[in-house]
């Protein structure tokens, strides 16, 4: 009996019970999740996964405090989904979440692509990759379009070197940084097939679904609202039609396409006001996007097929 008591490490008193609800609120996780719900439209499966991850981490933290767990759980993740589905935005929230839970010390996000990691000549890659890894320590390293790191067609490609360093740090310094890989689903699958080391080191795979037309419309409204613009009724109808048409056309990038469309609509609105205004304009006129600003888009004059769409885009 006494031997057992002696063997126990002289830690601070171990709590007998943990109130998860209380932890959830005091750690700030609740705020992050609420913000996520409020700010991000759609993405229901993603939010569910994040909620689950947060729950796991909270429980893990409580277990650690009671002396039941010692190892840091693997937190490396992969985000797969089409362009413009909010992978980077969610990664940023993830960094915040992990920071509040105390799994990373700083909570910053370093977003990189192949160019930042892979060098151009022999001996250039390792220092470059290490430099980025050092910058990301204490935070989250977000590798966008991670599959470009691996180029099977060129066996002397330096990407492999970057991958090896990454894997080593991901394994040995799990306490120091969290790596999130992002990219299109199919190509990421192929990437993981050819790099089994990555697959086994990544515990959380989160898939980002495309937005529905209705969600895209709400996103458009939110984006405009943030810039103090709004759509009038005919413009709202035009926007709905625009979204439906745009989806069928090439290079559709979900929310990013919408953002670009809105930027162009603002341009046209400014132009229209400039050319048609005869007297002074009030705030209402300056912040209203009307149907003609959207209807002027190329999307409406373009057939939904790929070949001609590309030709026009080049002009």
């Amino acid at each position: 009996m006494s031997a057992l008591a002696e063997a126990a490490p002289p830690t601070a008193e171990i709590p007998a019970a943990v109130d998860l609800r209380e932890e959830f609120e005091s750690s700030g996780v609740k705020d992050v999740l609420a913000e996520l719900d409020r700010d991000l439209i759609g993405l229901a499966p993603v939010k569910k996964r994040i909620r689950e991850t947060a729950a796991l981490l909270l429980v893990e933290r409580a277990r650690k405090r009671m002396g039941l767990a010692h190892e840091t759980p693997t937190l490396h993740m992969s985000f797969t989904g089409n362009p413009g589905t909010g992978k980077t935005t969610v990664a940023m929230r993830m960094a915040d979440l992990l920071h509040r839970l105390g799994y990373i010390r700083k909570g910053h996000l370093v977003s990189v692509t192949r160019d930042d990691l892979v060098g151009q000549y022999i001996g250039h890659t390792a220092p470059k990759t290490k430099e980025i890894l050092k910058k990301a320590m204490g935070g989250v390293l977000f590798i966008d379009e991670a599959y470009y790191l691996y180029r099977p067609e060129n066996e002397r490609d330096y990407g492999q070197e970057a991958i090896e360093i990454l894997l080593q740090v991901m394994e040995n310094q799990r306490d120091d940084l969290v790596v999130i890989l992002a990219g299109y689903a199919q190509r990421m699958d192929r990437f993981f097939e050819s790099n089994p080391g990555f697959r086994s080191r990544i515990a959380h795979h989160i898939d980002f679904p495309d937005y529905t037309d209705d969600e895209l419309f709400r996103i458009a409204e939110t984006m405009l609202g943030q810039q103090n613009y709004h759509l009038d009724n005919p413009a709202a109808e035009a926007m709905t039609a625009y979204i439906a048409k745009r989806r069928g056309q090439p290079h559709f990038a979900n929310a990013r396409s919408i953002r670009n469309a809105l930027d162009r609509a603002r341009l046209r609105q400014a132009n229209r006001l400039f050319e048609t205004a005869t007297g002074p304009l009030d705030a209402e006129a300056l912040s209203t996007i009307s149907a003609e600003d959207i209807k002027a888009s190329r999307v409406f004059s373009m057939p939904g097929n790929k070949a001609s769409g590309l030709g026009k885009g080049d002009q």
Partner: protein
Amino acid sequence: MRITQGAFSFLPDLTDDQIRSQVQYCIDNGWAVSLEFTDDPHPRNTYWDMWGHPMFDNPDAAALLLELRECRKVYGDRYIRVVAFDATHGWESVKLSLIVNRPAEEPGFRLSRQEGAGRLVHYTTTPYAADRPAGNRYAS
């Protein structure tokens, strides 16, 4: 003889965790930390060899510890110090330096006296280690 240069050198050697906290303190102050090593411990030898670049934009001390581990692998038999450089205008100088690695055996210094004209004596200290060529001074 134990070399005492920089901060904390009269204390027992810092553990890696203690080094991490010191380095984090430097980073939080906005100083750029870097590593330097040498096998010439003479106090007037201020220019040590650099290990990598100064880390101007790493927010976490883990990066320095990573480099320290690497540096110890290569130069574990020499002196290694952490240098924290303050780049703010008007300072532009080292704010803190501390030894984070030292050879297993430190032979110390020889004091030599040179008698000059009259009864004048010049004193010079020479590290015993410097008797051997650079690179082979501390048997590991």
